C-alpha cells in the first residue's frame, strides 16, 4: 500500500450536495468519495493505492482533472486497486457529477 496526498487549484464546484461515492474497490478499479473541503478554490485529494511507484502519473491525472473541471471546495478520498488512468479519469468525472447533483 502507498498513501499519496495532493492539492490542486480548481474553480469552485457549482453546488455542494451530500457526499458522493462512486466505484468499487476491485482489481483494476477504484472507489472515490467526494465531500465538502475547506478551501473553495482548491481540491484536496488523498489516495490509498495497492500499486506503488505511480506518484507522478497520479499527479498528472489529478492535475488534469482539477484543471478541466470545477472541483474547488472538495475533499476527494480514493481507494485504488491498480486502476488505469482511463478508469481513474472516468470515475473522477462520474463522482464529481454525482456530487454536484445533476449540474454539468
Amino acid at each position, binding site marked *: 500500500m502507498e498513501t499519496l496526498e495532493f492539492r490542486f487549484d480548481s474553480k469552485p464546484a457549482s453546488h455542494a450536495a451530500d457526499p458522493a461515492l462512486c466505484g468499487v474497490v476491485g482489481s483494476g478499479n477504484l472507489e472515490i468519495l467526494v465531500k465538502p473541503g475547506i478551501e473553495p478554490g482548491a481540491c484536496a485529494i488523498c489516495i490509498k493505492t495497492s500499486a506503488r511507484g505511480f506518484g507522478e502519473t497520479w499527479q*498528472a491525472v489529478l492535475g488534469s482533472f482539477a484543471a*478541466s473541471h470545477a472541483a474547488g471546495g472538495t475533499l476527494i478520498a480514493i481507494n485504488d486497486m491498480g486502476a488505469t*488512468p*482511463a*478508469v481513474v479519469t*472516468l470515475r473522477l*468525472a*462520474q463522482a464529481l*457529477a454525482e456530487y454536484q447533483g445533476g449540474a*454539468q
Partner: protein
Amino acid sequence: MNAPLPRDWDTLRQSRTRRLERAASLGFGKEIPVDRIIDLLEAVIQPGDRVCLEGNNQKQADFLSESLADCSPERINHLSMVQSVLALPSHVDLFERGLANRLDFSFSGPQGARLAKLVQEQRIEIGAIHTYLELFGRYFLDLTPNVALIAAQAADAEGNLYLGPNTEDTPAIVEATAFKGGIVIAQVNERLEKLPRVDVPADWVDFTVLAPKANYIEPLFTRDPAQITEVQVLMAMMAIKGIYAEYGVTRLNHGIGFDTAAIELLLPTYAADLGLKGKICTHWALNPHPTLIPAIESGFVESVHCFGSEVGMDAYISARSDVFFTGADGSMRSNRAFSQTAGLYACDMFIGSTLQMDMAGNSSTATLGRITGFGGAPNMGSDPHGRRHASPAWLKAGREAYGQNAIRGRKLVVQMVETFREHMAPVFVEELDAWKLQKSMGAELPPIMIYGDDVSHIVTEEGIANLLLCRTPEEREQAIRGVAGFTPVGMARDKAMVENLRDRGIVRRPEDLGIDPRLATRDLLAARSVKDLVRWSGGLYAPPSRFRNW
C-alpha cells in the same frame, strides 16, 4: 522469322493425369478410406509442389494437415505452402519435420512464436505476409496451388461438397486449383446421400475423405459482454455520437475486440436514444458476432454478409434470413473473398483496435519474438483509391481531407484504443516494435497493420482525434498526442497546440461531445452477459460451453 520453340502446352494436365493414375494404381477411387489417407497424399503430392492447406481463423482442414505432417519427408519435401493461416501445431510440424520449407501466408496467431523461431533458425523461408485478398489474388497469378487440401461439411457419393455456414476461403482455393491442373482433396465431416445444397460441384473435387472427427472451428468472434468495461462504454458513446452519427455511417465493418463489441451493444440503447435507428449501421460486412444480436432484434440492422460463421449462431442465422445470406436449404453461405471485397470497396467505415500506434498514426499488432501477420485488417482499414461510387459518409470525409472542391471521397478508418493496455503498457509509442521485428527477421518492410495515412480518426478514453482535418504532419502528431492520455508520449504533448486543435474541433473531449460521464456505466449495454444474448435471440443462439456460466 524465327520458328517457334517446340514445347508441350499441357504439362499441368499431363502432371495431373500422372498423379491421378498413380492414385488409381493404388486402388483409390474418389472416396478415400480414412486409414489410407497418407498413401494417397504420398501418391499425388510431389516434392517441390505448391500446396494450399485450408484453414482460417475459423474452419481448419485439421485432419488433412495432421496427415500431411505424418507423410514421409523422403517422399514429400521442399513443399511451398500457400495458406491463409498458420494456426495449428501441425502447420508448423510440416516445416520442423522437413516436408515444407517455404511459406506464403496471411496470419499466424497462436503459432506466431514458433514461426519466429523457425525463421531465425533459417529453417523456413517466408515468401511474404499478405492480406487475405492479396493471397487469394496471387492464387490466380503466381501462387496457384498444385494441390489443395480443404475442409467441407459433407460430400455425396459423386464428390459434390456442402460447405455449411463456414464456406470461408474454400471457393477461392478450389477455383484456383481445379482450373489450373491441380488436385483437390476434401476432408468431410459426414457423407450424405443427398446434400442440403451443392457448394462445390463434384468435377472440381478429386478425392474426399471422411475425417475421424469434425473439423475444428474456433469461436473467435464471441465476446462476453460481462467483460466490457465502463471505459469501453464511454469510448463507444464517443464513437457513436462523434463519428457514426456525424458522418451517417450506414455501411461498415467492425474489428473483433471488446471496444467494438461495446458499440454493438450500445446501438439498441444509446444510439436509439439519439434517434439514430435507420440512420447508422444498417449494412455490415461482419462475421455473425453474437453481440450484434440485440441490434438486429431492435431493427437496426438490415443486412450482414459474413466472412465465415461463428460457433453457436447457426440456428439464429437461419431464422433471420432477411438479414444474413442463406441458401435455399436455410443455412448460411459465407465467403471470405467476397466479404473482404465488400470491406475494402463497399464499406464507408472500418473501426478496429491495435496494440501499438506511433506518432504518425501507423499501427501494429506485432510484438517482439512473434510473427503474427495481418489477416484482413489492412484491406478493411485502408482507403481504397479504386473506389468511385459516392455516399454521404464518404463525401463528407473526402471534403474534410481534401477541401470543399474534393474530387474524391475518403473511407473512414477509425482506430479505437485505450491509452494503456494491461500491465500499464502504453499503446502510444515513439517507435513501433515492428521496426525491431523487421531487423530481427530480416524482412523487407516493418509489419505495419494500418498505415497512418489511412487512419481518419483515433478514439481513446481521452477523446477523438480527427486526422482528416489536420493540415501538417506537426498537427497530426499533436492531435495523436492530444488523445494519448497519460502515456509518456501523451504527457509530452504541446499543450497550447492541442488546445488550438481542440478549438478547431480536431481534438474533441467527451464534454465537447456533450457526453454525460454518469451514463458511461454497464447499465447502458443492451446485454450484460452471454445469457442476456441468448435471451435476446429467443433461445436461438447456442453459445459454446466455455461461454456458459449458468
